[in-house]
């Protein structure tokens, strides 16, 4: 490894793998290292052996759960929103060659003690049990307003200025009840808290449009999911990088980020070897997050997320035995500041044995008893066969990296899809390259 590269990338999480894939396609010489002997870092999917080793130490997985290789349990619960930016990157880079996707079967919201399907257009809104008769009419008008909006046509604006007016103003214009605002803001615009209400309506409008257009693509829910788990995504982008000449070293300890007298990046030391590059990119765990073993601490904690990976032997009550689903518990429904999310997948997505369901309950931690906070989510699951709980700090870099050529990515947040991951990729790209990320159609070197 005593060579000189354009970029060294540390950690094979999805963010880092997209970046190394895109950099390699651009013709950059990339060295990609990971301390683990598997791909994916914090966004990996683990088989049973790996899962029990991570959470239960020496305890082996119970044999009744079935074969080890049938499992790919995600550590981070996220889905791909069908019309989102990740889908565009997947298509443009053609890593779809390595992946297969299925729909997530349903999207639900918790209201007054039970769960209901999220209506995604005016037709569904009219049928939804979430609203009374008069509220349905008002909601119908609201959805028609959103669907009809054209920036260049003031006649469609109905007196609203999306950039100047707050979402509160929009809700009030259509007279929507707080409960309706809850499912629109949380189950469709996918905000984790209520801060959006007092802000400009434009982002909320865009998020609702993303939701409804994603919903319209495949019909059942706005989400798609890769067969064999989310861990396939970093692997696919790592392969893209390798195919374009990227060098991969897994199971490689990273002992030191070497800098010069001015603090600028020089190289990465692993044992006695030092690999040099113009710049380094990597996830927070390689830059002092959590422990002191990364040398200088270059990240700061912004909060914590609790995630409970639950193994079930039955589908989720109230979902019509859906093989997969998202359930959102809006914060107002359970007296919190942040929503609780539940993501469910099953053998339909080749992530566990037949008749097993994997549900991950997660939220942003608000108290010093985080497990109590997810109780309303756990209660919806019925009997839980096995539960693995993590409380993960969310790290963000302390600087943009331009001064020292050390570019750090962010931890995986509590949102339900990968749009913020792509935002991070775009942000890091801009910082590293100095210009915005433009997706070019990949010329296929494949020989047919």
């Amino acid at each position, binding site marked *: 490894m005593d060579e000189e590269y354009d970029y060294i990338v540390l950690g094979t999480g999805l963010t880092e793998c997209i970046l190394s894939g895109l950099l390699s396609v651009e013709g950059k010489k990339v060295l990609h290292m990971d301390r683990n*002997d598997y791909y994916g870092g914090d966004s990996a999917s683990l088989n049973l052996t790996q899962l029990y080793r991570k959470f239960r130490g020496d305890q082996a997985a119970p044999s009744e759960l079935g074969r080890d290789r049938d499992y790919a349990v995600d550590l981070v619960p996220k889905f791909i929103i069908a019309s989102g930016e990740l889908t565009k990157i997947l298509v443009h880079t053609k890593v*779809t060659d390595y992946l297969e996707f299925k729909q997530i079967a349903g999207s639900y919201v918790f209201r007054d003690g039970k769960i209901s399907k999220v209506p995604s257009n005016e037709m569904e809104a009219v049928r939804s049990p979430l609203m009374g008769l008069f509220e349905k009419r008002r909601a119908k008008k609201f959805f028609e307003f959103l669907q009809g909006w054209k920036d260049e046509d003031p006649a469609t604006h109905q007196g609203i200025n999306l950039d100047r007016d707050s979402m509160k103003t929009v809700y009030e214009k259509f007279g929507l009840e707080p409960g309706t605002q809850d499912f629109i803001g949380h189950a469709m615009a996918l905000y984790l808290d209520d801060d959006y209400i007092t802000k400009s309506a434009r982002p909320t409008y865009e998020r609702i449009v993303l939701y409804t257009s994603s919903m319209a693509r495949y019909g059942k829910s706005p989400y798609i999911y890769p067969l*064999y788990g989310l861990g396939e995504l970093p*692997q696919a982008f790592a392969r893209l990088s390798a*195919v374009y000449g990227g060098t*991969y070293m*897994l199971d490689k300890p990273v002992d030191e980020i070497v800098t010069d007298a001015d603090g600028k990046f020089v190289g990465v030391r692993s044992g006695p070897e030092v690999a040099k590059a113009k710049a380094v990119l990597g996830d927070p765990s390689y830059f002092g997050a959590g422990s002191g073993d990364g040398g200088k601490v270059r990240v700061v904690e912004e909060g914590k997320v609790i995630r409970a990976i639950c193994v079930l032997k039955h589908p989720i009550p109230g979902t019509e035995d859906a093989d997969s689903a998202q359930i959102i518990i809006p914060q107002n429904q359970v007296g919190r500041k942040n929503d609780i999310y539940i993501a469910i997948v099953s053998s339909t997505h080749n992530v566990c044995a037949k008749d097993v369901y994997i549900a991950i309950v997660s939220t942003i931690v608000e108290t010093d008893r985080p497990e109590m906070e997810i109780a309303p989510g756990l209660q919806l699951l019925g009997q839980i066969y096995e539960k693995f709980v993590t409380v993960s700090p969310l790290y963000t870099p302390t600087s943009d990296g331009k001064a020292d050529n050390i570019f750090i990515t962010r931890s995986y947040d509590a949102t339900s899809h990968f749009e913020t991951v792509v935002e991070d990729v775009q942000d890091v790209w801009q910082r590293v390259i100095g210009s915005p990320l433009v997706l070019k159609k990949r010329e296929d070197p494949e020989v047919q």
Partner: protein
Amino acid sequence: MSKQLQYKLVLLGESAVGKSSLVLRFVKDQFDDYRESTIGAAFLTQTVTLDDGTAVKFEIWDTAGQERYKVSTSLSAPMYYRNANCAVVVYDITQAASLEKARNWIRELQRQADPSIVIALCGNKSDLAARRQVTQEEAQKYAEEEGLMWTETSAKTGEGVTDIFTAIAKKLPTTAPPATRGGVRAAGPAGRAGVDLNKQAANASGDSCNC
């Protein structure tokens, strides 16, 4: 009409044993002495026609150098060997250590890959027999014990290369593999209730789901 079958084949083996050269010989009938390491291709394809007219198309996945610097022998990228119908595990007959590595790969495949996978052990660089460190007897005995196909090849001269792929083609099931196995992309999502992102990207209005 003669039958068309498609299978996914993965290549494994230590660095510099000639995995990519072997594929290049098989697919393009070329050899380059100074090839550094794997070059950019997601996968290559080549078709073998059997005596009965059956055309067996291999979708060949090279490691793209991803396993080159691995310390451990575990298969770090399950995506790579997932749904593989066959594997060619390559060693260099002039490097005894490369056979040890090959044994590790085979153990991992037996543990983690589909149980029906056809594994061929392939001793490459038979043109360098003068510097041989691995005897034919030793390799053959091991292959027999493990129920593997075995042969020696020279990507440089072409000796044995087509033969091993043809032998694998003959050993694979002659019925079309189920849609969820092999021929990963060619089978297309139509056969398996998945969603096709490419199609959707081109067609913004969206299709109904094909479940």
